[in-house]
């Protein structure tokens, strides 16, 4: 299956934006029937590369080779005609249309001189494509009833409907459950068997070693290296990515454990979780591990009053408390840093200092009027501690990088002087450098006597940072482990419903 000449290649390609060289003389080779993993930190130029490959951007220098010839993509349609398609993390599909309509959107089969849509042909062809990837979906089913994983299958079917030769998977597993990831892997295998060249972009190393045949590493818009996945190890890859050792990725510091500050007794929800009990001590990081859909976020939402709980009690410093809204949770000193930074965390249009004072407007005002000087003080105290990089606290958050936005969100919550901080997937989708900064900071928090509850789907993160690990499966706690007792196999087994 392996051929010596690549099906698709970029040679010495550069792409310049005002002030930034997003791609600097980069190389990329994709081979028919092989998966090439593209590895790099945020800002390495991965998304620019994808846009260059799909005709959204045109390179300033260098050549695009396809099937042994130099080609150019003046627009996205040209790349699509050539059989180059990208499946993005947030796939653009239409909820109100059917599966088949989504697959053929933009190129519906037509009949007659009126060019009316040929429904039977369209559904028939959709059925054939779905059968090819063994997706158990009806062409006429409405898209809005499908799970995220099933929607991914539709997106893949759409890619195949145009006879894809090169498929770009841009962080496809970010929103998928364990089971759905396995299905995706199977689809990738089938694409490989058809001779498709695949570019696989991900932050997760286990996935790289599970599916990729080759790797290419970018750093700061430059090509660093490429090769066969069999001849490289994870530490070597990481070192190529960040050009520094990753020993400090999990800067776990044992903090002195204090009294139990927060506990939950028999918390239940009609559909999402049942009989959840745990407690956290001062200076402790409690890890909550589980697959997507295990009910972890729902528990946290119930705790801070975002969604109703059916039964159960919450205790703070031994006293039962009743939290009915996030405002009350903040008042009690329990804060929640949500998973979706941009949708749930920051006010993009407001300046940094206004973001940070937002949860405590009444504390920063006097006689009913806001005091900007007090808001600035608060911002200086906390944003500086988190090393938010900006020239001006009046800078609007939209102008900051993703990592800095996350720091603003965390600073906002720390400024409320909480007792318990809940971090939901605190390092989701951020690069290794920022990850280390967030982990470092978690260690500092517990040393200051805070209790941290960390919800995470990343096993290394949970094992690297948590003092105790609660493993959940389908709304139930299946295991509670001390850091010293934890093994990767045991945790995964408990999270997937097995007994260990």
């Amino acid at each position, binding site marked *: 299956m392996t051929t010596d000449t690549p099906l698709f290649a970029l040679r010495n390609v550069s792409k310049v934006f005002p002030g930034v060289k997003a791609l600097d003389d980069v190389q990329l080779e994709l081979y028919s029937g092989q998966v090439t993993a593209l590895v790099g930190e945020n800002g390495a130029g991965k998304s620019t590369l994808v846009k260059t490959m799909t005709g959204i951007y045109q390179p300033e220098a260098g050549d695009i080779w396809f099937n042994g010839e130099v080609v150019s993509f003046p627009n996205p349609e040209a790349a699509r005609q050539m059989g180059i398609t990208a499946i993005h993390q947030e796939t653009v599909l239409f909820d109100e249309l059917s599966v088949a309509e989504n697959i053929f959107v933009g190129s519906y089969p037509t009949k007659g001189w009126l060019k009316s849509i040929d429904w039977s042909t369209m559904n028939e062809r959709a059925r054939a494509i779905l059968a090819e990837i063994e997706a158990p979906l009806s062409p006429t089913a409405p898209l809005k009833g499908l799970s995220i994983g099933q929607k991914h299958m539709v997106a893949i079917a759409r890619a195949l409907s145009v006879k894809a030769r090169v498929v770009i998977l841009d962080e496809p597993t970010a929103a998928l459950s364990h089971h759905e990831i396995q299905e995706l892997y199977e689809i990738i295998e089938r694409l490989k068997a058809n001779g498709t060249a695949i570019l696989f972009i991900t932050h997760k190393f286990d996935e790289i070693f599970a599916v990729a045949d080759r790797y290419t590493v970018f750093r700061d818009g430059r090509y660093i290296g490429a090769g066969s996945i069999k001849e490289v190890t994870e530490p070597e890859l990481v070192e190529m990515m960040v050009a520094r050792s990753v020993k400090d990725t999990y800067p776990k510091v044992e903090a002195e454990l204090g009294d139990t500050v927060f506990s939950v007794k028999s918390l239940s929800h009609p559909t999402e979780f049942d009989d959840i009990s745990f407690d956290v001590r001062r200076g402790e990081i409690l890890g909550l591990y589980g697959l997507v859909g295990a009910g972890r976020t729902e528990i946290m939402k119930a705790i801070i009053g975002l969604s109703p709980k059916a039964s159960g009690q919450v205790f703070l410093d031994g006293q039962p408390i009743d939290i009915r809204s996030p405002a009350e949770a903040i008042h009690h000193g329990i804060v929640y840093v949500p998973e979706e930074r941009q949708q749930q965390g920051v006010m993009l249009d407001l300046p940094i200092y206004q973001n940070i004072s937002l949860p405590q407007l009444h504390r920063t005002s006097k006689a009913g009027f806001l005091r900007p000087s007090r808001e600035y003080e608060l911002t200086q105290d906390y944003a500086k501690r988190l090393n938010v990089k900006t020239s001006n606290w009046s800078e*609007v958050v*939209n102008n900051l990088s993703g990592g800095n936005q996350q720091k603003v969100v965390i600073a906002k919550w720390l400024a409320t002087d909480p007792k318990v901080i809940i971090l939901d997937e605190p390092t989701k989708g951020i690069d290794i450098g920022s990850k280390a900064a967030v982990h470092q900071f978690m260690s500092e928090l517990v040393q200051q006597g805070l209790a941290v509850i960390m919800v995470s789907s990343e096993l290394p993160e949970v094992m690297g940072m948590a003092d105790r690990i609660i493993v959940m499966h389908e709304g139930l706690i299946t295991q509670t482990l001390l850091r010293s007792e934890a093994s990767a196999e045991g945790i995964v087994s408990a999270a997937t419903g097995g007994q260990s």
Partner: protein
Amino acid sequence: MKFAMRIVEQRELLLATVILFMLVVIASINPGFVHPENLASVFNDTSILIILALGQMLVILTRCIDLSVAANVALTGMVVALINSVFPGVPIPLLLVLSLILGAGLGAINGAFVWLLSVPAIVVTLGTMSIYRGVIFLLSGGEWVNAHQMSPEFLALPRQVFLGLPVLSWIALVVMVAVYLLSRFRPFGRELYASGGNPHAAFYTGINVGLTQFKAFVISGALAGLCGYLWVSRYAVAYVEVANGFELQVVAACVIGGISIMGGVGSVGGVILGALFLGIINNSLSVVGVSQFWQLAISGSVILIAVIANSRSERRADRIILRKAIAADALQPNPGTAASR
């Protein structure tokens, strides 16, 4: 996003420049127009639009819209006119307070639907807009309340001159200062911007988004009620069709003034300039001998240009997906309030 702030600031600067330019052109045709006395009368003429637009701004900041303001003006105006015609002895200050309370009540009805039932604001206020007009018909039986049925004090208040300006202008100035202080320096003002800018994040931050929207509707309604009295006494007549279609001018003043219809962006200065811009067009066209028809065409063109300017300033690389996501959220009413109940 200093960039966007600059655009907002530039927007005010730009509007001020355009207004100055317009004045220069008009003055070259009819120098009398820019006489201070005439400019003061143009401001007085625009006062009601300014007051209503400032109330509307608070609502739009929360990602809602109040289309019922003009109907609110008409209904409140009719009620105070009827009271005045039947009980001429009721003191005017009491009527003023009554118009504020009644207007606030009508605003509260809108706000309650948005807050408690999560009905999209455009649907709610489209409905109440017709209902309020219908109520005027029921109260008045379709009859007009004319000047001779109103007491002299009732008619005099907005015209009374105080320190060189009519009371109507003074009321507009007070509302301008009050809304400025509210939006810039009160915690509630910050909550307005947060609720519209990102309702999800606002709710996670402990802000009751629905309640904030409700309060914005109440304030907008109260200001509309106040304008109800001002309108009816100024024009000395109350009938079903008072201020018919005026809500569009109010929304237009906001949009021209740089208020993002997506919520969370805008300033008092912009809205005042937006309203003055429309006021000057309304007042100057006949002075310079241009048909009233052009007034509509010019207002419409300016609104389109303003909207295009807004969307261009928001279009930044790599944020397009995010903007789309936010737009998609906006179509679902009040995520926060739904979850809170």
